[in-house]
């Protein structure tokens, strides 16, 4: 799908909990062409401290309505401005960007791991993986029960596994403490998105389990389409741009000390 920059109509905006919300955007090009794990780069408001665009994963798509949604956590001025938008307004979006996840084949058994707002790209990934005929397991980690969102939606696409740091829901501890991430489990592939320490811990487990593993990185970006060279990560083949050669990387290609 060709990259484009467009003012897209906001068809819905919905607060999910204290700091997460969903924005639904009407696309001009067929959303079916967006690959799971790809992201968009948005500009809500020309505020001085949110000068650049803000990269956000495509959370889910709706082919019938030709809309896609973003799951956003409010962390600073840019995301706060986004949260104040209203349906009927438009948002400037550059999309689709990045490579996306490797898709499973029919019969593959895969595990999607999302920590915090890292669950964002996993809905789209789960939906498309099920379409491909894969068996999907979804491991979701958060600090506490009130931080877990969209569990019913995820349940549509596979088996859900939950952890909370404080034990208020599911297994107490981090995602890597969950039984689904242990050597007696066998997956064709693990796909992971979340805070870097969590992704590194999952990558370590995947190594132990001898399982292929992909992670989605969130480096700081200035352009999002490969021209500024600001977003690099070290790989076995030297610095690569997270925005064009990622955000999804196989852990074997990264120079992570794990």
């Amino acid at each position, binding site marked *: 799908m*060709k*990259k*484009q*920059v467009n003012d897209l109509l906001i068809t819905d905006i919905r607060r999910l909990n204290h700091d997460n919300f969903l924005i639904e955007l009407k696309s001009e090009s067929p959303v079916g062409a967006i690959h799971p794990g790809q992201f968009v780069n948005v*500009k809500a408001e020309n505020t*001085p*401290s*949110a*000068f*650049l*665009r803000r990269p956000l994963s495509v959370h889910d798509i709706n082919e019938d309505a030709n809309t896609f949604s973003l799951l956003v956590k409010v962390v600073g001025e840019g995301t706060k401005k986004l949260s104040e938008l209203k349906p009927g307004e438009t948002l*400037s979006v*550059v999309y689709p960007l990045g490579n996306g996840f490797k898709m499973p084949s029919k019969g593959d058994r895969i595990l999607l791991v999302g920590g915090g707002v890292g669950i964002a790209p996993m809905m789209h990934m789960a939906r498309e993986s099920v379409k491909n005929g894969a068996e999907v397991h979804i491991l979701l980690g958060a600090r506490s029960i009130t931080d877990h969102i969209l569990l019913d939606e995820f349940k549509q696409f596979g088996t859900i596994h939950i952890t909370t740091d404080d034990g208020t829901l599911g297994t107490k501890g981090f995602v890597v403490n969950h039984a689904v991430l242990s050597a007696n489990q066998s997956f064709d592939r693990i796909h992971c998105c979340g805070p870097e320490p969590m992704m590194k811990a999952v990558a370590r487990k995947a190594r132990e389990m001898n399982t292929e593993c992909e992670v989605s990185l969130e*480096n*700081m*970006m*200035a*352009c*999002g*389409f*490969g*021209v*500024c*060279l*600001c*977003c*690099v*990560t*070290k790989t076995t083949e*030297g*610095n690569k741009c997270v925005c064009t050669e990622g955000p999804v990387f196989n852990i074997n290609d990264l120079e992570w000390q794990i």
Partner: protein
Amino acid sequence: MANLEVKIHDLILKNPVMTASGTFGNGTEFDDFFDVNTLGGILLKGTTLHHREGNDYPRMAETPSGMLNAVGLQNKGIDYFCEHIYPKVKEYSTNVIVNVNGSTIEEYIELAARVNELNHIAAIELNISCPNVKQGGMAFGTSCPMAEQVTKAVRKVYHKTLIVKLSPNVTNIAEIAKGVEGQGANAVSLINTFLGMAVNAETRKPVLSTITGGLSGPAIKPIALRMVWQVAQAVKIPVIGMGGIASTSDALEFIIAGASAVQIGTANFIDPTLCVKIIEGINDYCERHKIKSISELIGSLQL
């Protein structure tokens, strides 16, 4: 349609809008967004003699109406350029200009000589103002004698249009512009980024891996505009203006202050189609003000 054509020495630009080196990749990254050939010219990203990995991540910090970068000239070197990039960019019908960077005068010479061989490269932009490399770079651009020396050396081996890109991190930019003009530069382009810094107060660490980086974006526009105006009055060769241009009005202000052409940098990141809008905007302005040729506008500031 007004006549937007401008001349930069041997270069004929169909309009005065170019892209700034390091903000436009090699052009092909913009193919999805618009036809790059509609531009007056494109500046390819900074090229060095040898492959450079650039600086460590983080390389970027957002600042009020601007950004700091510390890319450090990541590129695959001139051999790779000739083999893999040149064959693609030579197909563009617009002017394609290579931004060359050395850590020593010898490197500048060797690079310029190599680019001199490439038929479809219309000009080089001699970057003596990169603040993000340990050796060379800005050191050449902040000393008048060194700027003159490198220009003189490159002039000997480079026979097409030679543009020298100036650093704003100096007391007297007009003096340096005159210096390089005296050594045979055919045009000067300005400004490169300001040396700046960002600190994370919570962690008490620098934000960039390199501590300091180059400041670009609308924040620096008022200083860039002043420097373009000063340089345009000091030299006879054409001046290419840049620094924070983010709208048609910004571009016109540089032209009115004395720039024969402008380059759009950081603003490409925010609106990848901006250059096209600015070309249209300049044309609209000319029609509205009954200006037949853009050359009437260059340096037309009324004091």
